[in-house]
């Protein structure tokens, strides 16, 4: 919770339509400062749509979205970024031709324009410290990094904006299990540094293990919410998303 006793992010009955198809049928959730909150659910449940609605990438038909009491509804993506929300999109979208270092600096472009050069340099060192592999390859073209390394770069770049809220969309998609593990360890480490994260992950088990709380989406509706340990014990969640069958659960 923020000092004034409110959640950092709050969604109330958010509805999103793609043409006539209702993708979000009134989604409500909140993220408190310093929390990691996971959005889980099957493909098409509305997880990425929720993130895109928050970022201003997808128009919202009804409902309320606020960041510390300030309305996000109807804002353009760049306005949302200025308020302190940074998304790491699915598929990373790093600039392959640029070096690792330049990609990271790119993440702080708003701050550079605000003449926070010294602070940006400090953050750069801190983030390179967090990801030794990026430090090692700081002068290589980002396109030459492996998938896992690119993902780390994408997260590192997002952190360079010093976001109040980091939105992570499927950070482990397409990664080998060991790398996926590493990425989620990094996410867990970010919490220790006070970063607030809304995490969308196909790997339900892994994401609930790093998250404090979670929301389970089904066809655009939240059907369950609660602390991660409770969700992990819910057998619906186990069956539907952990791939366990009836005999195992």
């Amino acid at each position, binding site marked *: 919770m923020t000092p004034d006793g409110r959640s950092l992010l*709050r969604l109330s009955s958010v509805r999103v339509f793609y043409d006539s198809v*209702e993708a979000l049928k*009134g989604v409500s959730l909140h993220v408190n400062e310093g929390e990691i909150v996971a959005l889980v659910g099957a493909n098409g449940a509305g997880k990425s749509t929720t993130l895109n609605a928050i970022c201003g990438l997808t128009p919202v038909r009804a409902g309320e979205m606020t960041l510390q009491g300030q309305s996000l509804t109807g804002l353009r993506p760049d306005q949302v970024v200025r308020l302190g929300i940074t998304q790491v999109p699915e598929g990373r979208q790093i600039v392959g031709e640029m070096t690792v270092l330049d990609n990271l600096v790119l993440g702080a472009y708003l701050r550079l324009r605000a003449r926070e050069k010294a602070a940006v340099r400090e953050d750069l060192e801190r983030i390179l410290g967090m990801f030794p592999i990026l430090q090692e390859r700081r002068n290589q073209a980002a396109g030459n990094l492996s998938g896992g390394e690119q993902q780390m770069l994408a997260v590192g770049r997002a952190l360079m904006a010093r976001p109040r809220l980091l939105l992570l969309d499927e950070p482990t998609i397409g990664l080998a299990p060991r790398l996926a593990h590493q990425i989620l360890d990094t996410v867990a480490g970010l919490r220790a540094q006070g970063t607030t994260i809304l995490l969308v992950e196909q790997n339900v088990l892994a994401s609930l293990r790093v998250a404090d709380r979670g929301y389970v989406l089904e066809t655009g*509706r939240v059907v369950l919410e609660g602390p991660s340990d409770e969700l992990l014990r819910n057998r619906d969640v186990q069956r539907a998303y952990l791939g366990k069958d009836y005999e195992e659960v």
Partner: protein
Amino acid sequence: MSAIWNPAVETMPREELRQLQWERLQSTINRCYRYVAYYGSVFNEVGVQPEDLQSFDDLRRLPFTTKQSLRDSYPYGMFAVPLREVVRLQSSYGTTGHPTVVGYTSNDLDHWTDLVARSFTGVGIGKEDVVQIFFGYGLFTGGFGFHYGAEAVGAAVIPVSSGDVERQLRVMQDFRTTALAGTPSHALHMGRMLEKLDLDPHSLSVRVGLFGAEPWSENTREEIERLLLLTAYDSYGLAEIGGPGVSAECECRCGLHLAEDHFYVEVVDPDSGEPVPEGELGELVFTTLTKEAFPLLRYRTGDVASLDTSPCACGRTLARMSRIKRRTDEVLIIQGIRVAPDDVGEILRAFPEVGEAYQLVGREEGQGDALEVLVEVGVIQDLSLQSLERLRERLEENLRRTLGLELTVRLVEPQTLHGPAGRQPRIRDERAL
């Protein structure tokens, strides 16, 4: 002032709580709609989809859930999870035709324990205490509900269960009980028995009592406190929405703090069903917010009370409800068990020798509250004393078995239960609770 068991929610800013309630209400509505056939058809009947409900006020577009709907879906018709996910079953009471079976998943049980732990902590009961639980253990929710809550706060728990007042007193003395949990009527009987046996209440170590499961008055509270030399607190819960722990007094004794993070409560005019302004008396209507196995939307309790959301000196932000002032329907609450005359009538109808009229009489006896059922005799060929006594015994046996409650039956002559102004009320409560 005592500690607070779960400060994160018990002292949460109300605006924050509203958001939490709304998120949980939505997910409960979505689960009820998807997984409970009864609610699916209710939504269809009133032409509402879950996404049409976009505010707390919109919830009123759904009809109330009544005791009758629960009876019609006996035993598992309104469960939202398959039985294999249920780890506990309890029941409101055991008539063959009409009980309500309540299921719990392991998350539901954890929540229940947490709720009762809040109640105990709020009245200063903790790990230093020896808690004597004299709610009945078994199908009813009182015994087990209070039991696990007391264990959670670290108290030493004596699961003595209900019954025999003298035995309760002996345990209280020998085990050096410091805290009681049970029905107020039973506590009152213990106090009176103590007086009758001329035992010194100062010889007991008991200092606090958490009572509930039946309506009681300030007078009864004072009487219990005087006789047993303890501080008595009120608590509230009902089996249909999970049992005890729904609300309990804090040490301020200015209302019972409702677990609003688990229940959304409406107070409505019992006749019109419309909401009454805050502070006015009305029927409590509960919507569960976290139940996995047995969620209920807008369940009418029949209990009349008022609500107060103003801040409490204890620091809790959860709304406070008044004592239960009365019932909207005919129910005699005896030993914490709600007995409806209709249920008794249904059992009696199976006996052709029995007439139309009957009456449930609640009274105080040495060993506790007692239920006597007066039954008018109908048309009988064999009026011998022997056959009447046999009938009486059969009725008694049948009612005991199906209600799960000690009681006596007295046969009365035809027309006895009819006064000049027509039939007498089906309930007569002679207790001074």
